[in-house]
């Protein structure tokens, strides 16, 4: 009789365990045995010693409490962060660091988005970049040297390959170097070419419809301060990013037309982008998903006003 189990604690425990294990087996143990739960992209490489050290710091500081590392396949999310996350990108993540809350932005496509210098400065002083940011300052990571022996143990535990030179390098590096190295590798196993398809601006015959428009210049100034000045300086004199007021453009002498300014703001300047025979070195993120066209033209007008043109 079924009522008997309410008089038999051990039997009751065994039956409860069996009931609990059904869902466990179907949704957790069985998938674990299936190959599609263990995919790996061809491009994906194990973390280097320095990157793993950075990832350890990411774990230690609980960065995953505020930052996710997975872009959902939703239109606005792909626009904001980049290509949606693929299962095969995470084969070396022991464990996954997807997070569950976005107090800060998603970081799944942060690798290569900004130059190293941007990250160093942002970790040191987040509010120097974004006055209203609530991210803690991690300036103190600069003062802490890495412990190569520790990191070697960690690489061994994970069976990741390394050379003695890799380890030797670590002794001169700080925790800040490590976390920046980790930032720059996140999400980079996806070919950046997927991103390139976003370019949908017809580059022929584009002229600035808002050139010398005082209202546009005022709006451009505002947008410039919000988005550009942290890297290019308050007056475009250059800092992390190149100067906008000298006579250079894409590392070569001589200015280019407005449409090239528009193109770089819109699409970013990934390594390999070539304009009028000049090659970009990367570091400039795209703003085409966040700024409307007339806003971008306003920024161009403002830059021209800085140049006195």
């Amino acid at each position, binding site marked *: 009789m079924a009522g008997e189990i309410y008089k038999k604690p051990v039997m009751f*425990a065994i039956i409860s365990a069996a009931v609990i294990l059904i869902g*466990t087996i179907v*949704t*957790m143990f069985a998938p674990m045995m299936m190959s599609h739960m263990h995919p790996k992209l061809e491009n994906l490489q194990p973390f280097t010693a320095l990157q793993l050290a950075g990832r350890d710091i990411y774990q*230690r500081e609980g*960065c995953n409490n505020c930052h996710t590392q997975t872009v959902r396949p939703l239109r606005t999310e792909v626009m904001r962060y980049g290509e949606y996350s693929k299962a095969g990108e995470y084969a070396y993540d022991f464990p*996954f660091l997807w997070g569950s809350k976005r107090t800060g932005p998603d970081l799944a496509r942060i690798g290569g988005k900004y130059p190293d210098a941007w990250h160093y400065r942002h970790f040191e002083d987040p509010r120097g970049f974004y006055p209203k940011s609530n991210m803690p300052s991690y300036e103190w990571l600069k003062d802490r040297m890495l412990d190569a022996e520790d990191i070697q143990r960690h690489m061994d535990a994970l069976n990741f390959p390394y050379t003695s030179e890799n380890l030797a390098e670590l002794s001169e590096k700080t925790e800040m170097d490590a976390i920046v190295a980790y930032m720059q590798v996140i999400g980079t196993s996806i070919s950046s070419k997927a991103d390139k398809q976003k370019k949908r601006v017809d580059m022929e015959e584009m002229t600035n419809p808002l050139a010398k428009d005082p209202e546009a210049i005022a709006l451009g100034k505002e947008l410039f301060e919000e988005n550009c000045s942290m890297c290019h300086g308050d007056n475009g004199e250059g800092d992390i990013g190149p100067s906008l007021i000298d006579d250079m453009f894409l590392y070569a002498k001589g200015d280019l037309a407005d449409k090239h300014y528009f193109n770089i703001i819109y699409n970013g300047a990934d390594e390999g982008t070539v304009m009028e025979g000049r090659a970009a070195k990367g570091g400039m993120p795209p703003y085409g998903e966040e700024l409307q066209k007339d806003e971008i033209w306003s920024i161009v007008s403002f830059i021209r006003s800085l140049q006195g043109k």
Partner: protein
Amino acid sequence: MNTYHYDNQTVKSFIISSIFWGVVGIVVGLWISIQMWAPSWNVAPFFTFGRLRVVHTNSLAFGLGVGAIFGISYYILMRLTKRPLLFPRLARFHLYLFNAAIALAALSLFAGMNQSLEYAELEWPLDIGVVILWVIFAVNVFGTLVKRKEEQMYISLWYIIATVVAVAVLYIVNNLSVPAGLFKSYSMFAGVNSANVQWWYGHNAVGFVFTTPILAMFYYFLPKSTGLPIYSHRLSIVAFWSLVFAYLWTGAHHLVYTPLPDWIQTLAIVFTIFLIAPSWGSVINGFYTVAPEWEQMRTNYLTKFFILGITFYGLQTVQGPTQGLRVVSQLIHYTDWVPGHVHMGTLGWVTMTVTASMYYIIPKIYDTEIYSVKVANTHFYLVLVGQLIFSITMWITGIQQGALWKAVNPDGTLQYSFMEGLIKNYPFWQMRTAGGVIFTIGMLYFIYNIFMTIRKGSALEASTAKGV
């Protein structure tokens, strides 16, 4: 001095310990709620948000939650088996080891030793400690059950048994890792698979720490404090088995729209919807139990704690499944709605039920009455208002965040930068802190009431011992 007296002291000490860790967790909770809108409250390296948040969740889930579960389960166990604990000294050792483990856990989290698995952050040496604690608990629970003096096992005992079994499986599997030194390890699972294991664990930590043991308390203390029998035994049976069956399928609703295979997500969502039924089985059982004497909501100070507690449980178990739906998840996942949801459960359901159980136990142990019903009522209204402010502000700001992240201009570009969206949270985050302060004041009333009852009880005990 009989052994009941000795065991009661263990129960009482577990209750006091859990309250102590509760205070730590609540203070840290207030602190991090301020850090959300005032980053200067981050004090590097030990007291930054990233480290403190896990101290907050762990000291409340494991310190307050599990501490109360150990102590109150022992109390319920003794009453329902009609005998003292089979291993009283082991239970006392359990108490000491529990406190040592939680203290070390807090220190290790301040120090940044963190596995990065939500609610399983503790590094491997502490994991072993937690497993030992759980084995001790299991030995005492099953030993006492086997040697019980009451043949029939009451509902609360079913939930305690399910808790003991499920937490053991969940905790051990999710913490399997490769040590890389004493203070560092790497999960045995990687990538998508590790996400699936973690949320199988994470969701069921909610199921078997914040649900089943709390239901054990609810089913025991509601009839005890109201003098009314549980409405339907049959409903309890159906609700119990369907709850423990369905819970384990649902973890992947935390991973909707991630790279986890779609079939696991969908299966989880389906079972999540199903889970409304057994959850509401207990809600209905609770309501109908008190239905013959609704005036007790006014006349019996404990009844309203339990009824409001089960009401929030009911709201949670509708809210949660709603959040699991893809169409809702895409809007509110990763926003502040999520902590809003969690806190309605923990502040509304768990804390209400646990504190009411403690109000029942402490005077019983000393054979006296609660120090002040008035203070208990003040406590009730403050934690109720505090919790509602918290939950509601987080719902609003959560929906707002989700909407801002999705908003587009007529030309299809994004309307708000991430920073523009963040800034709009600040007033709500400040209101949340205000709600937290009100809740904390309520808890101070509770602690004062318990402390004064113990003082009164101890004085009574001393005078009885002297034969005065």
